[in-house]
């Protein structure tokens, strides 16, 4: 019975655009969106470097990158906490328990996903594309740009997958953000807190929104992947 009541209250919060709820959603999107931009700006060049360059220990680097895709968020949170704590090497920046710390933690989580899936997309491009570009007079740089453009759907899938991961993540941001109301409280940390308190209305409302965002992301991912498969190369 209480579940139905909670669901009703949650729906009301969503329909009436509750200020607290909106603040939490916007901060979540801001933190995860910023982390995603940073991860993409760093991850895509890293993927291109790994995809196009040959160097010693490249195989180990790629294996490490794939492994980091499964980084436990709490371990990342702990690592960033130690970095940013007052006695840590970056303590002087005073970023702990701020949205910036949360962005750093989520960037670390998103980076291997963006880089690893982009790398796979780049090396998955048919080598005939490289040959075709060269025969048409492309410089090595132009060949690389062409391959990245051909891999765009795979790269977008990586970016979207990373966004899904950081939006749903709770361990790292709880440790480095501290879940401070109105400042570092985001959807996942609020759900955890309110559930602990037995206050299911807000937790359920945020759960519904989180699920909706996840559904939108996955629908978009599906459309992107479908669009990428238009035919076979002859």
């Amino acid at each position, binding site marked *: 019975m209480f579940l139905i009541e909670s669901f009703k209250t949650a729906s009301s919060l969503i329909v009436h655009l509750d200020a607290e709820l909106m603040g939490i959603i916007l901060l979540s999107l801001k933190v995860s969106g910023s982390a995603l931009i940073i991860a993409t700006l760093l991850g895509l060049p890293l993927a291109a470097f790994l995809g196009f360059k040959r160097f010693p220990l490249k195989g180990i680097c790629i294996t490490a990158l794939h492994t980091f895709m499964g980084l436990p968020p709490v371990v990342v949170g702990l690592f960033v906490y130690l970095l940013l704590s007052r006695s840590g090497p970056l303590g002087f920046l005073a970023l702990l328990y701020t949205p910036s710390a949360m962005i750093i933690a989520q960037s670390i989580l998103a980076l291997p996903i963006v880089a690893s899936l982009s790398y796979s997309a780049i090396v998955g491009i048919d080598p005939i594309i490289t040959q075709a570009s060269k025969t*048409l007079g492309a410089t090595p740089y132009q060949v690389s740009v062409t391959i990245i453009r051909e891999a765009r759907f795979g790269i977008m899938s990586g970016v979207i997958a990373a966004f899904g991961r950081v939006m749903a993540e709770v361990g790292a941001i709880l440790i480095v953000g501290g879940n401070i109301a109105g400042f570092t409280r985001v959807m996942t940390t609020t759900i955890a807190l309110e559930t602990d308190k037995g206050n299911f209305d807000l937790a359920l409302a945020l759960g519904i929104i989180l699920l909706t965002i996840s559904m939108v992301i996955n629908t978009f991912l599906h459309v992107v992947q479908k669009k990428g498969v*238009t035919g076979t190369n*002859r």
Partner: protein
Amino acid sequence: MILDLSATNISKGYNGNQVLKGCDFLFDNIGIYVLTGANGCGKSTFLRLCALIESPDSGEINYRAEGTVLPKDLALKRRITLVLPKVGVFNTTVFRNVSYGLGIRGIKGRKAAVKVNDALEFVGLADKKDQNGLTLSSGETQRLGIARALVIEPDMLFLDEPTASVDQKNTAIIEDIILRMKREGRATVIITTHDKEQAARLADSLLLMHDGKISRG
């Protein structure tokens, strides 16, 4: 400016298997050269070497203009082009596929559009310009490859087995395109084919590759 291509004592092998064994030839006319020979005899290898996509193990490939040997730099590489048997279509529209070669040369906008439309018209793909290139049939894909090469107005065009995987109707269309290119003096065209009848239909100069060497057919 007309380009001459000379291949001198070219040898090339892969994994210990010697494919070309001292090939010599001079391509010095605008017209159609057709290189025939059995499958695996080294025709495609020879074309890739001539198109400067690969380097020979020994011997020399030289391009000359008015008697002067040209350096094998980007400027020269952009005067020649090779259409591969597997064309390598970019995952975008037919129009953008064809405009690729112009884009990388810095030719864009209206000037590029005119050239692309002209090339698409020439190969009979004007009505498919907004279609994704990957959705074309095998024959249309080969014509796309030719349009993509033609649009950059090469002095020397290499076509590697352009009709190997296409039906009779498209074979006839592609042969007609090649003959029109000759009539309009668009480029020196060097074609490989294992089809002797096709070779006879197209060739101004018929060449035979046998035992890693080229001779006049």
